[in-house]
């Protein structure tokens, strides 16, 4: 797997160093999904997916099936499953309304009864799925991908029926987030085997997950538990015998901080880009008016042309802001939440250790009791003590086994996570840079068209 990464890096930047002009032959390979001829064909990758369609308001498909994944089949990682979340539809009216999403699965795995099928799910169904998976796998060390966040404000606007661009945006943002969530979940080989996941993907009717509401009894219980956990964490002083864990925890702390900072900057960029787009549109209108009042014909025409160019540029800015957000910003916020899940897993390990420790302490106490009973010569109490000792010896052994198991699982999971992270970041960032390059190309076209008009002013 390391070899793959290495070649990746070289290839990526071989492409990035080409100067791409409008008519350059290099442009085609970069924009197509075939492996670029500039790449040494050791590990072809389809990092460059087809261009975002500017007209429709949908987020780009992040996880295209890459050749890498085909290769990894050989390593035993089978990813022959593709999930799509689409067609958000409003069901019902008023405050009881909700959005239903179509979840489509395409797969050749034998565990599924069909190779292609789709079901309708609502947001709380996704949360219910996550809740079930988390309760089963988190405490044994598996990094369960977190579900998208709730948004009371956003959802209320949609329910109330506001048909404006902000609620369309909200629905689209959510749809894309749900899609990424499912794709990450099915990529996990252990979670893929889970019957709850299969039921979620396959069965036409799903029992409603009521315990996912924020203000429900279960919701409040969750909050209380989280708080209790936080307090416990502070009081556990674990003797870390394994430096690997300490190192990794520190690394994740650092990564968390860095990502948050980066995310904040990217969000600011999205905001400013949107502002720029609005201001450019305003200027375009103003320039058109100026062109109208200008009484020199050629200058008037040139000013109108300028207004048109600026309008087109405004469109570009909007698309770019879109890309900024869906590719870059969402990637970062996904990972900030994933890292929170990773930290949670480390915490579970600590709790596991604590349990083991407690069992050992109790065993010791029981032994002391036995010794005391021996001295005091109380045969019935001695028997009881011996029973208890056996019980606690077993618990200590179990505690040790659990701890070792969770440590092993975490090691594997972290390894997997790191690999995924690297792939994710590279893929998305390359795509994002591509979008920047494309914007530049468009700018060239527009200004080249304008230049002769400006020169024609006589």
């Amino acid at each position, binding site marked *: 797997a390391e070899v793959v*990464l*290495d070649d*990746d*890096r070289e290839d*990526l*930047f071989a492409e*990035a*160093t*080409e*100067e*791409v002009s409008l008519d350059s032959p290099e442009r085609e390979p970069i924009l197509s999904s075939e492996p670029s001829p500039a790449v040494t064909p050791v590990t072809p990758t389809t990092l460059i997916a087809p261009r975002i369609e500017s007209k429709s308001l949908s987020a780009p498909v992040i996880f295209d099936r890459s050749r890498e994944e085909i290769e990894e089949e050989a390593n035993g990682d089978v990813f022959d499953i593709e999930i799509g979340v689409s067609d958000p539809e409003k069901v019902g009216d008023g405050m009881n309304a909700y959005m239903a999403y179509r979840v489509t699965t395409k797969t050749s795995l034998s565990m599924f009864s069909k190779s292609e099928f789709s079901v309708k799910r609502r947001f709380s169904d996704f949360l219910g799925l996550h809740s079930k998976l988390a309760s089963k796998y988190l405490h044994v060390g598996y990094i369960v991908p977190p579900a998208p966040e709730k948004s009371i404000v956003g959802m209320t606007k949609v329910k109330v029926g506001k048909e404006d661009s902000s609620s369309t945006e909200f629905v689209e943002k959510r749809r894309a987030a749900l899609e990424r969530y499912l794709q990450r979940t099915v990529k996990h080989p252990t979670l893929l085997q889970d019957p709850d996941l299969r039921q979620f993907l396959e069965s036409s009717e799903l029992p409603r997950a009521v315990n996912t509401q924020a203000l429900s009894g279960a919701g409040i219980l969750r909050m209380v538990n989280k708080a209790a956990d936080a307090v416990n964490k502070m009081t556990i002083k674990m003797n870390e015998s394994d430096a690997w864990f300490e190192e990794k925890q520190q*690394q994740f702390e*650092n*990564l968390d901080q*860095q*990502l948050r*900072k*980066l995310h904040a*900057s*990217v969000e*600011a*960029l999205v905001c*400013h*880009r949107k*502002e*720029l787009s609005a*201001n*450019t549109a*305003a*200027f375009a*209108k*103003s*320039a058109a*008016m*100026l062109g109208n*009042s*200008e*009484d*020199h014909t050629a*200058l008037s025409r*040139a*000013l109108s042309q300028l207004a048109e160019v600026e309008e087109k540029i405004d469109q570009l800015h909007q698309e770019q802001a879109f890309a900024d957000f869906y590719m870059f910003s969402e990637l970062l916020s996904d990972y900030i939440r994933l890292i929170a899940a990773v930290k949670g897993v480390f915490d579970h390990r600590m709790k596991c250790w604590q349990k083991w420790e407690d069992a050992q302490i109790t065993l010791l106490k029981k032994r002391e009791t036995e010794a005391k009973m021996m001295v005091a010569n109380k045969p019935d109490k001695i028997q009881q003590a011996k029973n208890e000792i056996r019980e606690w010896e077993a618990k200590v052994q179990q505690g040790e086994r659990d701890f070792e198991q969770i440590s092993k699982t975490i090691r594997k999971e972290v390894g997997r996570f790191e690999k995924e*992270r*690297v792939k994710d*970041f*590279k893929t998305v*960032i390359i795509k994002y*840079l591509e979008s*920047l*390059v494309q914007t*530049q*190309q468009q*700018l*060239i076209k527009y*200004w*080249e068209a*304008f*230049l002769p008009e*400006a020169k024609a*002013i006589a």
Partner: protein
Amino acid sequence: MMEGLDDGPDFLSEEDRGLKAINVDLQSDAALQVDISDALSERDKVKFTVHTKSSLPNFKQNEFSVVRQHEEFIWLHDSFIENEDYAGYIIPPAPPRPDFDASREKLQKLGEGEGSMTKEEFTKMKQELEAEYLAIFKKTVAMHEVFLCRVAAHPILRKDLNFHVFLEYNQDLSVRGKNKKEKLEDFFKNMVKSADGVIVSGVKDVDDFFEHERTFLLEYHNRVKDASAKSDRMTRSHKSAADDYNRIGSSLYALGTQDSTDICKFFLKVSELFDKTRKIEARVSADEDLKLSDLLKYYLRESQAAKDLLYRRSRSLVDYENANKALDKARAKNKDVLQAETSQQLCCQKFEKISESAKQELIDFKTRRVAAFRKNLVELAELELKHAKVSFVT
């Protein structure tokens, strides 16, 4: 921290001289050539070195320089406005006051926030703010220079005595800024003028040319004002986005220096790319500011000056018509006829003189305007193309 910028070195290198006449295309001839050869930024004022080359007999030498401050430019401009003889010309608009306040504030804030960012980030931001300061400085120099060049190019204004004193007298002109009382007087004068302007503009003009010009200028002025404001906002947004790239680049760099794994090397490379993008965006924003925003701002001021000319002409027309009426009345009463006649003749002469020169001035204004827009729009397009074509070559 700002000491480094005070008493600075010669900010205008040979290359920067090209900034001269960014907005206005002027023919300078050998008879009189004026430029600003140097400028110094001190605490809160800027000292311009005005350099003159002339073959005219009015001057003692053929080539000489003096140091002038902004207030002295304003004094010169006001002396033109107040001179009745120049009522028939478009008075070149005064250069705006050099305003470094915003830039200074930003530099100060940066200094205060030094502890909260990485050294790398700090150096980058400092460089950028210094570049911004420099850009503002160059702009103000250019605007003062354009004013002088316009005066020097004008066949009548270039002969003005005050102008020659301004160019030659190598002592301080002891021009003080207006005190409160004078500022108040100015304010009232302006109010009266605008009220008067409304009255006077109600008078329909017999001359089609001027009627057309008046309607045109009114609308044009308003639209230029609007376009100038919107262009400013657009340029500022561009700059904000460029600043964001800066921060993103720094964050990526921090991510990249965590360790030396592949992903970190990747981050470092991407950080470099973002830095490049930022530089490009900053340049785009600066060029837009120069070629578009400044152009519009300048023509906002010039169109106002043209409007003022039309106002003065209308005013003199009204005076002429009033003098006519007075003459008729005097003739009817047969009282003070001679006085009324002289008065009427003076008004007539004044009006005709203004009308004649005004016509030529307005035609020149149009020619200048078209030429300036052409030059700047072409340069804007060329620069935008240049920036868009810069590839991410590593």
